[in-house]
């Protein structure tokens, strides 16, 4: 089990975004005291606040006018913003693969291609469920894929 502890230790130290163990944090932190004094020394970092997603207007979802960045935030943000479920899982994968933890956020990745993004969104991958065309339309996905697809 020592390998497990080492890996977990590395991960826990790595990032705010990987503060998975909410209960530990909550148990050690009186919110009011923490606000005045900052987090206790030596403990895991506090969990970040809820991340608001970008708001998208009521326009035609088949011809979206919002940017790829806004569409990503709105349609993928439930899991892929800071400390989201998807971010937490990908951070662990990236760290295990020797990448820095900030690569857990899809916006920080430079190895994704637009086609890969589209394939994962429609086919799912590991914990990620397939997304329907009501979850994200093809036109919205085109813009999101173009935004995330910085790889070659």
């Amino acid at each position, binding site marked *: 089990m020592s*390998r*497990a502890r080492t890996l977990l230790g590395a991960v826990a130290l790595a990032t705010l975004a990987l503060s998975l163990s*909410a*209960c530990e944090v909550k148990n050690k932190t009186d919110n009011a005291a923490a*606000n005045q004094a900052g987090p206790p020394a030596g403990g895991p970092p506090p969990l970040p606040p809820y991340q608001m997603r970008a708001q998208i207007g009521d326009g035609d979802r088949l011809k979206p006018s919002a940017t790829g960045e806004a569409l990503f935030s709105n349609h993928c943000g439930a899991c892929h913003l800071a400390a*989201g479920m998807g971010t937490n899982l990908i951070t662990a994968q990236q760290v295990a693969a020797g990448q820095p933890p900030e690569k857990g956020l899809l916006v920080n990745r430079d190895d994704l291609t637009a086609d890969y993004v589209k394939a994962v969104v429609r086919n799912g991958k590991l*914990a990620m469920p397939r997304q*329907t*065309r009501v979850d994200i339309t093809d036109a919205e996905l085109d813009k999101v894929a173009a935004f995330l697809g910085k790889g070659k």
Partner: protein
Amino acid sequence: MKLTLPPGLSPQNFDAAVKALQGAVGADWVMTTDQDRDAYADIYAPGPETLWGSSGAVAPQSVEEIQAVVKIANQYKLPLWTVARGKNLGYGTAAPRMPGCMVLDLGRMNKIHELDATLGYAVLEPGVGFIDLYEEIQRRKLPLMMSVPGNGWGSVLGNALDHGIGYTPYGLHATKLCGMEVVLGTGDLVRTGLGAMEKNHAWNLFPFGYGPTWDLMFSQSNLGIVTKAGLWIMPEPETSLELVFDIPNAEDIGWVVDTLTPLKLRGVVDQSIFIPSWLGKMVIKGQRKDFWDKPSAIPDWRVAELLKEHKLGYWQVALRLYGDENIVKAQAEVVKAAFKKNLAIPPIENWWRQGDPTHVMDTTLGVPSAIPLQMGDWVGGRSAHMGFSPVVPATGAHVLGQMKRSRKIISDHDVDFYASFTIGGRFCNNVNMLMYDRDKPEQIETMKKLFDALIVDAKASGYGEYRTHLGWMDGVMDTYDFNDHAFRKMNEKVKDALDPNGILSPGKQGIWPTAYAGQRGKALA
């Protein structure tokens, strides 16, 4: 996934129905490619996804479009399977009970019609997710605190209508529904409660109607399509205090429940009190293989080691009080005195006051999150879960009895025991989480056998499930057998009367219309 036609529908008539639907909602919102059918499949299916395969999906954006869809469905005998946002993970996701149904996806019906902080209620369409509602409340800076379930990705109304539970004083979500607008199987539009009166001001405030009160007949139901509903939301409390008790041993759950239930019934504690076992804390610390590298269940000696290593009790009660500071302080003293009789270590106390920040996992403060779904990663691969969820009286004797029996059965199947009890009042919802890798058929077979054994055992002992996966909907309905299944028969009479062609969600919760009665007992897990 290849096209599965519903029983009795020819390919020609299916094509004609699809064309008619395209005319009603627009071609882009009728989704019938193989890829679309995959997207609407049950990604957690215990077995082949095709067992519960749809023929496609249709996504209307208005009540009028829903009525048009229902008219077409009746004309062509195309059965529909209604979902709000289709995120009912563990219970079938968006997939239909009967193969070949067209999924009626209400995800585009996502308007928030009213959001009233004075009286604490909202009027919502089914496509509004917990995250959507939470963000709207934050943007408008309204002093309201939602109750959210473990999976905050789904629909507010969908969860309430499926009897989902949360962790605040408003945690019994179905009881907070007030006033519904419903399209029936005939296409007729009705409003329940005081909404039966045109322009009634108290529609979403008074819990009854004039005459019989029907609202909850549309919950866990195939008797209508809820197009909007009122939902009460708790006024944001001045303060909240979390008291965290780590409970050392499995058997301690008996005295814990006997301590908490009287406090709940006396109103000292208002919330639905969630008590997860240790595995609920471990699943977010890593993967199973990091802690136990064999496929067999984690043995008791290793559990004891893990609890020690990670400073966990077998159970954790993270109880929350909500209200004015003086009242919360007084309540806390009563709670602490009650626990002191059995537990020497005082609880950890976490205060929150209005205006304090909340973090991404403050589900008991109404922050929606999908992070609890991370538990699936515990088993790795394409992970999935189901919950075996009997309801037991909220006494130590009943809770201990249920725990001992289910724990033994789960152990006999060589599966890890991961349970929670949520005290919602005079009862506990006992959820036994069963996690598996969808690419390991032997794991799925074990889970299915285990699930069957748990249902049979609970029924024999006088307990039933409150909710279940598609593959067991008939089986669990069978356990409700008083007077030769009189309850199911009554439901089926109502079903035939309101929906003569049986086109709305046939088989939902084991209720079959005459039109598809031949499908009962088919497509089981």
